[in-house]
């Protein structure tokens, strides 16, 4: 993917290529079928051309907001900023958890070999 300057990125985005789609799919661990790729390309372009409207908003000096708790500063009680005590507690029963796994020996989740000898 080309290095794009942030300010021009939204305009440039009007043209998501099939290579972009494949690159992003790889980043997201998705294996798109050959039929899906052009459809996703079309949809991403349609959505991103609508998103381009954000470019017209002046956000100079405006702080980024990750979640609403930040807007309730000074009211930490309301903002849900408290963490529970770090205490030892029994966790969910291991057998119940392993029962849900597609492949397991009862102790570990089994996956294909990562390193060949």
């Amino acid at each position, binding site marked *: 993917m*080309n*290095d*794009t300057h*942030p300010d021009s*990125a*939204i305009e440039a*985005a009007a043209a*998501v290529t099939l290579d972009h*789609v494949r690159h*992003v*799919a790889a*980043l*997201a*661990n*998705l*294996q*798109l*079928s050959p039929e*899906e790729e052009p459809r*996703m390309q079309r*949809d*991403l372009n*349609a*959505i*991103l051309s*609508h*998103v381009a*409207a*954000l*470019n017209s*908003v002046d*956000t100079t000096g*405006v*702080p*980024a*907001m*990750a*979640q*609403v*708790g930040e*807007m309730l500063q000074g009211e930490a009680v*309301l*903002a*849900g*900023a*408290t*963490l*529970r005590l770090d205490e030892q507690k029994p966790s*969910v*029963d291991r057998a*119940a*958890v392993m*029962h*849900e*796994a*597609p*492949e397991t020996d009862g102790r570990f989740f089994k*996956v*294909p070999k*990562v390193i060949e000898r």
Partner: protein
Amino acid sequence: MTESATLSSIVTAVRNRTVSATTLAEEHLQRIRLHDQVPGQEINSFLSLAEERALAQAGAVDELARRGDPLPVLAGVPVGIKDVLAMRGAPATAGSAILKGYHPPYDATAVAKLDAAGATLLGKLNCDEFAMGSSNENSAYGPVRNPRALDHVPGGSSGGSAAAVAAGFCAASLGTDTGGSIRQPAAFCGVVGLLPTYGRISRYGLIAYASSLDRVGPLANSVEDAALLLQVLSGQDSMDATSSAAPAEDYVAAAKDPVAGMRIGLPDEYFADGLDPEIRAAVERAADSLRGAGCTIQRVSLPHTAYAVPTYYVLATAEASSNLSRFDGVRYGHRTENPRTLSALFRESREEGFGAEVKRRILLGTYALSAGYYDAYYRKAQQVRTLITRDFLQAFAGVDALLTPMTPGPAWKLGEKVDDPVSMYLADVYTVAASLAGICGISVPSGTTAAGLPIGVQLLAGHFAEAKLLRVARAVEAAENVSEWSAH
């Protein structure tokens, strides 16, 4: 017991033993079995029934009633749970093939609270896959039909939760709302849907879509029922660090307070082009009845409204791309057959398990977060989110609540928008701004179109201002009931 009996009347009947919780549970389960899957007219609102757990709970409630012991506040009330919430004794699919057959070994906090309050948990409700959608057509287990008009969508993503209440399959339900997913289906199906303030109800046990936006809330037949459920569900939870310590209030009592003297704002931007005239008329009727009840009605402006949909679709998809990385075919859910390598296991399991809309949103979110685009999309959207939230804070400095349309038009026909994701996203224009700002809101039924499709009006109030919100909502509902009576 009539299909729309209030929750408190159900509890009273169970307490007085005029009906048993077991009979109620059996009647509702039977109604679902007979009417939810009629061939050609499938409402398809329930994905699974938790018969064993429901009857055990109802039996325990009946035993308390028989002994004359005090009953919990939702004793015997039959409820349904959106399938994105974990509930012991039932699968949790999130409407996705990737979680087919997954049985969570614990209860979500909201589910546990309903259980502790004596409610009968009937089963799990259909929804758009991972709560991504506005029509419930994205479920891997088939679409839900609108019980009020079977060839129409029920809305989404909590389409099953709204349809099941509207069809009388349960007295109330739990839904979730990330960008409108409780309020919009409530409007389409003619029921009440409450979006609590971000932090008001714990999300522990909710299969996450977009964590800075996801909320759990009730759908019910009346504002009073929604208030009672909110009272039960609210409160801080050590298992959800974003849950607020703000004390739960007596929302049922608060909803009954008179509204005279309250200031209601009509945001100009919510009455722009594209609003269906019948819906506009319903909002104007609600404004008139609030004025008649002694409220002052004034125009307000939320200048960044037009940017809410693009902001939402950048932020929600970015968060989704991260949250949904946990579905990898290793610990639970679908795994591809005979993967050659670990990375093939991830990629192929996800390709087979996710539907088109989920892939679309994961791709969009990954794109928005990828190198070179992060500032232009993700950071920019976060900044616009601040501006949208400031608009609301400024408005609520001058008014107690806002009155708006819930949706630009009534429920559309099944299949009408499935090939056009942008037009589906644009239908969220009145819901997503409140989601981004974290404020509370509610959809209140407000008559029907000439074609008989339900209309909902939206009320919005500030952070943790649910008491005010419910007061105004109840006044709108009361006026609506009066006009319905006089029309008959």
